[in-house]
């Protein structure tokens, strides 16, 4: 019987690996978008300084650049690697799929990334050290290189949502994977929002400049705020276009679960930011650090965090190109790459027989190990999206079954909608009866224990036994 190329499972109780990715991803998006957006603001301000002979603007660029160097580049570059690591441990097979489809794109992005890191040092430290025209070229080159990192990574991230047509499945070409239906809309949203974030941080820097003239502050604020407003408008318009490029499963998820939860906050972020930018333009000397800093945090927490969570949730049940499920199983054939779907193979032989990382003592289910096997199978099949503990914050499964303690009820769901792939945002999970029974037994037991007030996890306590034997 053919084994499948699946990896061991990493599980974080309560929050799963999804939140680890989400937290690191949100920090990265805030830091990296601010950096890329700021690169364009620098280019704009420096061009103005050069054309209008206003060298004092470069004092501001230097100060903003130092802030970026310390916060954005440290945190942005480390969390950039961090996202990669976190998706690796959460979805090793999905990450491998992305790497093997896009390795050369990623490598091209690395070229830009390297150039960008050298560039930010050059930009900041060479202000006032090299002639103005040469520095201006340096800044424009830096801005374009920074944006290129975004251009290249977004094709990959958009493909994670879906390719948007059948073409890629047939050709397997990176061209069709990269320039997917979602790409340009996504690019518009990100490019617009990076300008907004960079403008807000830019205003933060202005509000901290106690030692500079009012004239300089006014000049900077009145240059930056229109960029922020235009960026915001682009982001909002492209967001509505972006919604039209989503796959059907994402739209179901969005309408049923995500918009009801996040829409109000997102509208508030847009409204508050727009008002703040307009007021700043009208009264450029009234900027206060105690307003800009909380506003930036507000954008991060109420805007970016839900955005990242939404994008991650909408992709479900897939993690890449609508052909790899979050639970590592290949969902469908991709003839262009000679990839074969695995759901039916698992249905025929059972996960316990085809998963390489199952201890021999658990490959056959017995009365003694049923709970332990159930827990392991639940982790493998479900834990990429769900926590296992009742009451846990990450869409925990026991609560999803409304605390059901009858294993037949749970098994009916697995043998019905899950087996036939009837829930658009969940993977098709088709398992042999004994494996379904083990999962149902484990989940029913978890709910039973909650009812009894016994916190200890049965699957976990069952695990302890063999060690003692």
């Amino acid at each position, binding site marked *: 019987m053919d084994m499948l*190329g699946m990896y061991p499972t990493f599980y974080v109780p309560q929050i799963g690996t999804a939140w680890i990715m989400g937290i690191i991803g949100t920090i990265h998006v805030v830091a990296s978008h601010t950096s890329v957006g700021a690169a364009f603001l620098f280019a704009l301000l420096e061009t103005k300084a050069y054309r209008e002979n206003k060298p004092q603007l470069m004092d501001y660029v230097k100060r903003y650049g130092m802030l970026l160097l310390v916060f954005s580049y440290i945190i942005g570059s480390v969390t950039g690697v961090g996202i990669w690591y976190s998706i690796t441990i959460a979805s090793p097979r999905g990450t491998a*799929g992305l790497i093997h489809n*896009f390795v050369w*794109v990623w490598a091209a992005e690395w070229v830009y990334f*390297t150039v960008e890191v050298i560039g930010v*040092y050059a930009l900041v430290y060479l202000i006032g050290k090299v002639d103005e025209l040469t520095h201006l070229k*340096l800044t424009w080159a830096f801005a374009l290189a920074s944006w*290129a990192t975004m251009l290249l990574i977004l094709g990959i991230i958009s493909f994670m949502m879906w390719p948007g047509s059948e073409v890629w499945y047939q050709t397997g070409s990176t061209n069709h994977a990269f320039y997917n239906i979602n790409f340009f809309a996504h690019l518009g949203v990100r490019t617009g929002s990076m300008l907004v974030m960079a403008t807000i941080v830019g205003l933060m820097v202005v509000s901290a400049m106690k030692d500079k003239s009012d004239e300089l502050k006014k000049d900077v604020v009145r240059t930056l705020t229109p960029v922020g407003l235009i960026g915001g408008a682009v982001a909002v318009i492209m967001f509505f276009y972006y919604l039209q490029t989503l796959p059907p499963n994402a739209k179901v998820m969005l309408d049923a679960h995500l918009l009801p939860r996040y829409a109000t906050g997102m509208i508030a972020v847009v409204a508050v930011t727009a008002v703040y930018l307009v007021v700043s333009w009208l009264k450029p000397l009234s900027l206060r650090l105690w307003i800009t800093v909380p506003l930036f945090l507000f954008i991060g927490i109420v805007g970016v965090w839900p955005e990242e969570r939404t994008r991650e949730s909408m992709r479900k049940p897939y993690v890449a190109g609508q052909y790899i499920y979050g639970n590592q199983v290949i969902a469908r054939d991709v003839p262009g*790459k000679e990839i074969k779907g695995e759901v039916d193979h698992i249905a025929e032989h059972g996960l316990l027989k085809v998963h390489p990382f199952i201890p021999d003592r658990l490959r056959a289910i017995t009365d003694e190990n049923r709970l332990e096997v159930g827990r392991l199978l639940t982790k493998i099949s479900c834990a990429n999206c769900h926590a296992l503990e009742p009451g846990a914050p990450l869409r925990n499964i026991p609560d999803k079954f409304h605390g059901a303690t009858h294993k037949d009820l749970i098994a009916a769901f697995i043998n019905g909608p899950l087996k036939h792939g009837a829930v658009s945002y969940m993977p098709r999970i088709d398992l042999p009866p004994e494996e379904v029974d083990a999962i149902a037994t484990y989940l029913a037991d978890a709910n039973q224990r909650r009812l009894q007030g016994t916190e200890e996890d049965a699957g976990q306590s069952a695990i302890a036994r063999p060690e003692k034997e």
Partner: protein
Amino acid sequence: MDIGTLMNVMRDPAGIPSHPVVFQALMIFTWIFHIAFVLMTFGTAGLAIYGFYRRDRGEYWTRLSMAMTKSAKAGVSLLIVLGVAPLLFTQVVYDPQWYTASVLSARWLVVFIFTLIIGYCSWFIFYYSNKEGARHRIGWFAFIGLGLFMLDGLIMHTLAYQSLLPEQWMNWYAPGGVVDTSGATLHGIQWSRFLFIISLSVPAAGLYLMAYADYFKSRPDRERPYLAFARQLGVKLSVVGLCSSLVLFLWWQAELWRESVLATHPVGWLLGVSMLVLLYATVRYGQRAHGYALMGAGMAVLSILAVWREIVRTHYLLPFDYDITNYPVHADWPSTALFFLTFLGVGGSVGGFFVVLLYRAGRVQGMYTADKLVSRMGTLAVVMLALWTVTFFAYGIVIWMSSVFGN
């Protein structure tokens, strides 16, 4: 199913877009630069701390400590970005090994991210505080920074080493048949290998100092006695460091000699000989030869180390019939062209412009006015990037429209 067959099954079913040896060569090549910056950073960071606590012995130590703090700060940025490429290429041809090793110690990968951020921030605090008359206690920030960088190095080493021991994976994942999904343990550490590679940061700092002394020769504000002090210290560090590294190298080799093939492999011996040659060159020509030449020799040693590291890996995996040359290839020429054109075109013109500008500006006291060559390089950089961006969009729109409207 045996673990060897399994590793081949675990390869990504999409295959790879170019011949595996291309990725292997790029992996080795890019690792050389990554490890060079790792060693430079560790070495200069250590020297910065040492200098910080010797400030009462003379003004040069203060200046040196400040300069090395700055070097280490920039070094961390570059070692991170330069580490991306070898890791990427590793994941292409050694995906079963890398992903399994990572999941088995998954929590440590998360620890890696946050300790790197904390370590880096800590080093920045030291950088901003390490001025003349700085208080002794700010040295703690440097210790925390360097300590966390070392921990991160150890984590990366562990993942690399765990990748080589597939026969252990199941024991680590399910000790006694009980599955552990916590990823909470660093399972495989080969101290001889880790300490040998890390020890090279001492001679790396020495070679860096010699190059540093030559770089600033043209600056009137850098006095000759200070540069001579730096150079002399560089020679001393290189000699002491290389001797220590040679001992640790022999320890690592002795462990490798258990594998009979590796005991007689010429590249292993070549690495040892190259270190001896570098030691001789430093002792003999350390005060006379150009610092850049000696640094180049150091890079040659690291190149041999990179090749040796890959030979060791292939020998660990060959008994399991894991051979990257039979990785299925689905050639993808457009994306291959994208990388190589970007690497040569953008990397060469834009990266070249930035580096040359930084290099030349740094050698001049006061304002640097670009000469014709640098000025043209700047123009070329902007033009190349504009061209790249226009091509990216024009090409993309054609593909996008054919996918969307062609169906």
